[in-house]
């Protein structure tokens, strides 16, 4: 629930300065983003202070994360700049196991003295909590990697691109929307650089430089006389890329039905804003859907969120076990279903994989936040549930001895825990285009973009909207629809998966501010898929007269 508040606060129209200061850190100038961080040799020395202090106090394990988190957010509406925010947050988090119990403390005093104090506090917390701990923490073994590093392979560092260039681009996109019939447009650019150093008593010293970017906008068209307004959101995706994502390369565009354009690793915000304005206007007079069963052809920019909610979350092991029962909920995908070895999550063509490695994705890193080298693994293969998402202290609960490498913390100031890796639907093996998905549909709807989304606490029943909807009749798109939402049950829905486009249509979608935990932490995650068809899904009409 917190995620929505977070996005609303951080999002279009509001200033990012309302975000909690402990998450963003101090506001600085754009130039200061370019200042070099602490030298890696000094980080190693300081991290060793934490590890040695922890060991001397009786900890059986310790890790230290020295993090410098840089953010730049730009907000505009119509022809105005609303806000440009640059922030820096720097500190260290120390996590220990003492008496078989976790303890964590953090400080922004990244000095020998500050680190010693934080480590002492972490050990004291572990020892205090061990009195009520029933089962000691058990860690899966991990390799000692020595001194290693990893960087997001970016082509353009956002920090080196002048703010004026970013502002100009957003204002140009806004201008394009206004010229094409929009009454209002808000746009924003979120850019993040995590400079993370990890060290643990397992003997790893890992230096990582992680980049993410998210351009987005919302366009609104209004008919005052009818008292109606409709919006259309950007069809961009947040990505694990540098500023090169904004280049708008033709080679990365995929032509979709009804003139829609899909974007792979390069986004053309002006082109998308132009289309958005026209489509928002068209929505004002679009036909209201007739409720009933439809075959749904779902664009990757829409299907990503459905994957996120109906596959990503229910297969988080901590949810399955009940650790998130009081917040996000538990899961229908219980251990007995997994153990049976034949639980049909989806139809035979459904293959869902988890990874922390896919190039350009939000989840891609070399090592997770507890020093485990990242990888890809199966969650669902040929429709059957195969595995969950689990980290070092969890995998023994599912009889495995290797962490999946999906541990993450939003900052040095928060303790790391299991977070969703990228979860993606593998493209189909047969050569199918989007046209092939549509051509044999008698009565269907093509949906692109993210809209309203809601799912129950065990991830059975969901309802999703979208940004644009097109009616399919006898194999052809015949026009725009409105007031569309589909309701289904996770297992029923994935078992209705009938046809998947091949890899040429594959694109990733993402969520920049996924929320989990108490106190809540955000994380960024991608979901890849090709356009996919689901047969006979229940569609409701969401129009009301008041």
């Amino acid at each position, binding site marked *: 629930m917190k995620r929505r508040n977070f996005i609303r606060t951080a999002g279009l129209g509001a200033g990012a300065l309302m975000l909690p200061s*402990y998450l963003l850190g*101090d506001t600085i100038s754009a130039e200061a983003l370019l200042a070099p961080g602490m030298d890696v040799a000094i980080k190693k020395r300081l991290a060793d202070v934490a590890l040695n202090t922890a060991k001397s106090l009786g900890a059986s394990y310790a890790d230290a994360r020295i993090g410098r988190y840089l953010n730049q957010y730009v907000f505009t509406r119509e022809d105005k700049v609303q806000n440009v925010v640059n922030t820096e947050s720097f500190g260290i988090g120390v996590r220990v196991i003492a008496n078989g119990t976790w303890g964590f403390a953090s400080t922004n005093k990244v000095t020998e003295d500050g680190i010693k104090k934080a480590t002492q506090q972490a050990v004291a917390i572990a020892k205090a909590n061990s009195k009520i701990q029933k089962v000691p923490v058990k860690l899966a073994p991990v390799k000692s990697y020595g001194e290693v590093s990893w960087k997001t392979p970016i082509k353009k560092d956002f920090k080196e691109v002048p703010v004026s260039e970013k502002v100009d681009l957003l204002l140009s996109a806004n201008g394009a929307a206004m010229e094409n019939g929009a009454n209002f447009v808000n746009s924003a650019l979120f850019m993040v650089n995590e400079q993370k150093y990890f060290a643990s008593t397992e003997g790893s010293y890992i230096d990582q430089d992680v980049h993410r970017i998210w351009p987005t906008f919302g366009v609104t068209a209004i008919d005052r006389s009818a*008292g109606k307004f409709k919006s259309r959101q950007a069809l961009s995706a947040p990505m694990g890329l540098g500023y090169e994502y904004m280049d708008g390369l033709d080679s990365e565009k995929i032509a979709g039905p009804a003139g829609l354009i899909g974007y792979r690793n390069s986004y053309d915000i002006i082109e998308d804003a132009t289309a958005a304005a026209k489509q928002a206007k068209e929505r004002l007079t679009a036909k209201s859907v007739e409720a009933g069963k439809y075959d749904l052809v779902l664009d990757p920019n829409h299907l990503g969120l459905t994957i996120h909610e109906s596959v990503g979350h229910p297969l988080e092991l901590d949810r399955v076990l009940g650790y998130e029962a009081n917040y996000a909920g538990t899961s229908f995908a219980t251990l007995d279903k997994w153990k049976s070895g034949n639980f049909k999550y989806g139809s035979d063509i459904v293959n869902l994989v988890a990874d922390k490695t896919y190039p350009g994705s939000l989840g891609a890193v070399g090592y997770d936040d507890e020093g485990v080298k990242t990888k890809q693994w199966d969650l669902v293969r040929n429709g059957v549930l195969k595995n969950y998402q689990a980290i070092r202290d969890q995998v023994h609960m599912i009889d495995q001895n290797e962490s999946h490498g999906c541990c993450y913390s939003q900052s040095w100031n928060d303790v790391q825990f299991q977070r969703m890796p990228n979860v993606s639907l593998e493209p189909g093996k047969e050569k199918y285009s989007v046209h092939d998905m549509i051509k044999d549909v008698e009565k269907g709807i093509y949906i692109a973009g993210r809209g309203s989304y809601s799912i129950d606490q065990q991830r*059975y029943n969901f309802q999703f909207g979208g940004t644009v909807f097109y009616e399919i009749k006898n194999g052809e798109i015949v026009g725009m629809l409105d007031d569309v939402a589909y309701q289904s049950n996770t297992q029923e829905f994935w078992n209705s998966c009938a046809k998947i486009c091949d890899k040429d249509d594959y694109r990733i979608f993402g969520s920049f501010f996924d929320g989990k935990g108490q106190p809540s932490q955000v994380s960024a995650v991608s979901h890849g898929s090709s356009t996919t068809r689901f047969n006979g899904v229940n569609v*409701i009409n*969401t129009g009301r007269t*008041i």
Partner: protein
Amino acid sequence: MAIYTKEEAKQIMEKALSFSTADTCTINLGGSESGNIRYARNTVSTSGHRSNQNMSVQVSYGKKSGIATIDEFDDESLKKVVKRAEELAKLSPENPEFMEPLGPQSYDESVTYSEATANIKPEYRAQVAASSIEPAAAKDVTSAGFLNDSSGFSAMMNSKGLFAYNKSTNASFTVTMRTNDGTGSGWVTRDVNDINKFDPVEASNVAIDKAIMSREAKAIEPGKYTVILEPAASIGLLQNMFGSFNARTADEGRSFMSKEGGGTKLGEKIVDERINVWSDPLHPDVPTATWNGAGQPLKKMKWVENGVVKNLAYSRYWAKEKGVEPVPFISNGIMEGGDASLEDLIKSTKKGILVTRLWYIRGVDPQTLLYTGLTRDGTFYIENGKIKHPVKNFRFNESPIIMLNNLEELGQQVRINGNLIPYMKVRDFTFTSLSDAV
């Protein structure tokens, strides 16, 4: 020590202000101490403590402004943060919506602080967890809960002579109780400024009872039902409705509050005439600070009177554009209730559904304020004035406007998420599908 007294805060802010040479300068200073405990599977999973202090300095030259923040307040740091804000302001583009800071204001004394809450120790949090875990375990139930308490201050001062200060404490508690056979789930939430008003044993028992009562729920057909909504069920929809009381989006034509043909619904009847909503920062049960982030004094303000929209919020900029007085945004929602207890409402219901909570609420259509979401943690069928049996959870698609037009009866008020909301009975609430979730 992150909590400064009024005098200490004043001194630091005056010092910072003295370093500024910009046209205007506004300082915000705040600090808090918070602690939490989280438990699941009938054992404590994490506990934490956070101490936080921060100053933001906003300066302006004409319509150009810049903000910088810092968490250390010695003279050098204060000089540095003011200088950084001034540099940022000079570089920033003009903001056409820039408003000069307000001059001196007078504020009521708030009632948001409780010494008892500020003095909470880790032992107390552990005891709260035990208040859930022990009775749960004794009844074959598993608890998962979270308690967070905080005390803090916020202060504001500007170069036009405004000074504001507030000290507050808060504690919020939620616990989910699940029966070990996986067929029942209950939940409760409590939030207070004064921890003496919180009884963790009572709260935990409510959730345990609901978990046990909700076991082996029966499926009934989705459709339109008379519902009794506990305040924890209606608050999500109501808060979304409160959020639409914004003059600017209404004037712009992109809000539920926009009127067909132009103008807004200000002065129009939108819900049943028994609905009255106001905000009041001095209400003893749901107090808030008596000033907001713009330094505006917060006073008691009517939003809905006898079903009619009485006020829309105007930011200072939008009020100037429209030539009206600014109206600060809603601080706490207080909805008038009645005398009926929950039991009374059940007794007077021939056929209906009692809803503990609505969850995962998301907007579907901003035009009609249509929202979707699900019931959770205790949904019961009522027949002839009695709870007959638990029912499976439903997905709903409903607008708070339709809900408040279909009002049957208002019951007693309960504090929920800083608001004061009555139990309410509503007819024809729209459930659109069933969920297997427990």
